[in-house]
C-alpha cells in the first residue's frame, strides 16, 4: 500500500495502459472468464428478482390506469381468437394435406421444429448506445455461444456469452454483426445489420441494384447465414435507398420484434455454427 502511496502519479497512467491491454485482449474472447462468470452468478439472481418486481408493479400500475382500454382490448381479442381458431382449423387441414403430399414427394420438412427454451430478460444495458441484455438461462440449461434468440414476432439476436445461470444477448438492432437475409417475395439476398443512425431500425446492405425489392416486403434469414437457421422473420422493408456506387442498394427495415417492450424470449438450443464444423 505504501508503494502505491509513494508512486501515486504513476498509478493512473499504469491502470489506463492496463485497460487498453484488456480491451485489445478481450475483443474476441470465446468464453467469459471465471472472474466474470462468478460475478454474474452472484448478481444475476438479484437482477432477476428486481426485474420481476418492477415488471409486476408496472403491469399492475398499467392495469389500474387503463382499465377501459383493457376491456375494449379484451372484446377485440375475443373476436380475434374466434377468427384465428377457424383459421387454425383450416390450416390443420392444409398441414395434413401438405404432410401427405410431401411424403409422396419424399421431401424433408424444411422448417422443422427447432428445440427451443423460454427465457426471461433480467437486465438491460446501462448505456444508451447498445441493446445488449441478459436472460435468466445459461450454460446450466444447455445454452451456448452463438445460439439464436427469437421472440414471438421474429428474430431477436444471438447469444454472445453464456455464463452458468445467465447469458448475454446482442440484438440485431446492434451494429457489430450482420445477418444473412433475403426478401421472402423476391428471394433477393443481402445482409442485415443494426442501424445506429436510425435508432431501433435495421439496414439491409449489399442488395443488388436490379433487385425488385419493395416497401413492405418481408425480410427473413437466408440459408447463407452462418449461425441463423433460414426462414426466421427479421422485419419489413420501410424504405429503400440507393448507394453511391450504383451496384448495390440498401433497405431500411423495421424489425417485427418490439425491442422496447420485450420481456420474454425463446432460445433455439441447437448450435448451427457447431453443426457446420
Amino acid at each position: 500500500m505504501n508503494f502505491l502511496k509513494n508512486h501515486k502519479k504513476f498509478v493512473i497512467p499504469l491502470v489506463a495502459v492496463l485497460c487498453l491491454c484488456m480491451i485489445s485482449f478481450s475483443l474476441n474472447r470465446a468464453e467469459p472468464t471465471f472472474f466474470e462468470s462468478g460475478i454474474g452468478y452472484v448478481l444475476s439472481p438479484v437482477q432477476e428478482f428486481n426485474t420481476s418486481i418492477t415488471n409486476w408493479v408496472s403491469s399492475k400500475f398499467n392495469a389500474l390506469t387503463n382499465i377501459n382500454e383493457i376491456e375494449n382490448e379484451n372484446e377485440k381479442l375475443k373476436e380475434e381468437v374466434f377468427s384465428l381458431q377457424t383459421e387454425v382449423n383450416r390450416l390443420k387441414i392444409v398441414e395434413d394435406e401438405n404432410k401427405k403430399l410431401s411424403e409422396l414427394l419424399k421431401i424433408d420438412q424444411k422448417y422443422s421444429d427447432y428445440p427451443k427454451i423460454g427465457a426471461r430478460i433480467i437486465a438491460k444495458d446501462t448505456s444508451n448506445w447498445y441493446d445488449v441484455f441478459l436472460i435468466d438461462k445459461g450454460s446450466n440449461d444447455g445454452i451456448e455461444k452463438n445460439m439464436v434468440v427469437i421472440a414471438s414476432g421474429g428474430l431477436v439476436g444471438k447469444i454472445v456469452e453464456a455464463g452458468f445461470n445467465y447469458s448475454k444477448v446482442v440484438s440485431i438492432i446492434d451494429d457489430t454483426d450482420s445477418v444473412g437475409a433475403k426478401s421472402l417475395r423476391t428471394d433477393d439476398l443481402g445482409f442485415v445489420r443494426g442501424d445506429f443512425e436510425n435508432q431501433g431500425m435495421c439496414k439491409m446492405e449489399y442488395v443488388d441494384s436490379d433487385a425488385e425489392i419493395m416497401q413492405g416486403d418481408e425480410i427473413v434469414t437466408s440459408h447463407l447465414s452462418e449461425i441463423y437457421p433460414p426462414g426466421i422473420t427479421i422485419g419489413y422493408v420501410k424504405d429503400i435507398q440507393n448507394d453511391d456506387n450504383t451496384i448495390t442498394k440498401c433497405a431500411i427495415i423495421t424489425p417485427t420484434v418490439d425491442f422496447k417492450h420485450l420481456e420474454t424470449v425463446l432460445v433455439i438450443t441447437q448450435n448451427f455454427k457447431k453443426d457446420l464444423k
Partner: protein
Amino acid sequence: MRCFVTAVIIVLNFIIQSTFLHNIEIINITPNTAIIVIISFAFMRGEYEGAAIGFAVGIIQDIFFGRCIGMHALLGMLTGYFCGKFYADFFTENFLVPLLMTFVGTFLYEFAFYVFNLLILGYTDFIYFLQTVILPETAYTALLSVFLYKIFYIINEKLKKRENMKRKFF
C-alpha cells in the same frame, strides 16, 4: 467500513440502473446514474478515490454488457480522476458545482464513448447522435444528480462522523 459502503453503493447502483431505471426513461433515454456516483464521490473524496471508484463502476458495466473488458473502466477512471481535481477548490456543501460537473462530465464521457465506439466504425453523423443520445442523456443525468448528490453527501457525512469517532476512541 467506507470501502464496504462504497462497494454496496456501486453494486446497488448497477443493479438499479440495469433493471428498474429502464422504466423511467424519457424519449428512450435512461439517465446514467453510474456517472453521478463517480462524480459525486470524486468531488467529495478527491482524485485518487474518484479514479478507483470510476474504475470499479466501469469494470462492472464492462463485465455485464461490454463488448470488451476495459472500455467503461478506462473512461470511468479518467472521469473520476479529472473530476476529483476539483476536490480542493470547492466546499463539498456546494450543491451547484456537482450539478455543473455532472453536466460537463457526462457530456465528455458520452462524447468519448461515441468517438471510441462509433466514430471508428464509420458513423460520422455526430449531430444526430448529439441530438438523440448525448444531449438528452446529459440533461437527464444532470437533473437527477441534484437529488442523488444530496443522498451521497449525507452518506459521506455519516461516514466521516464515524471515522472521527473512531479516531477519538483509539
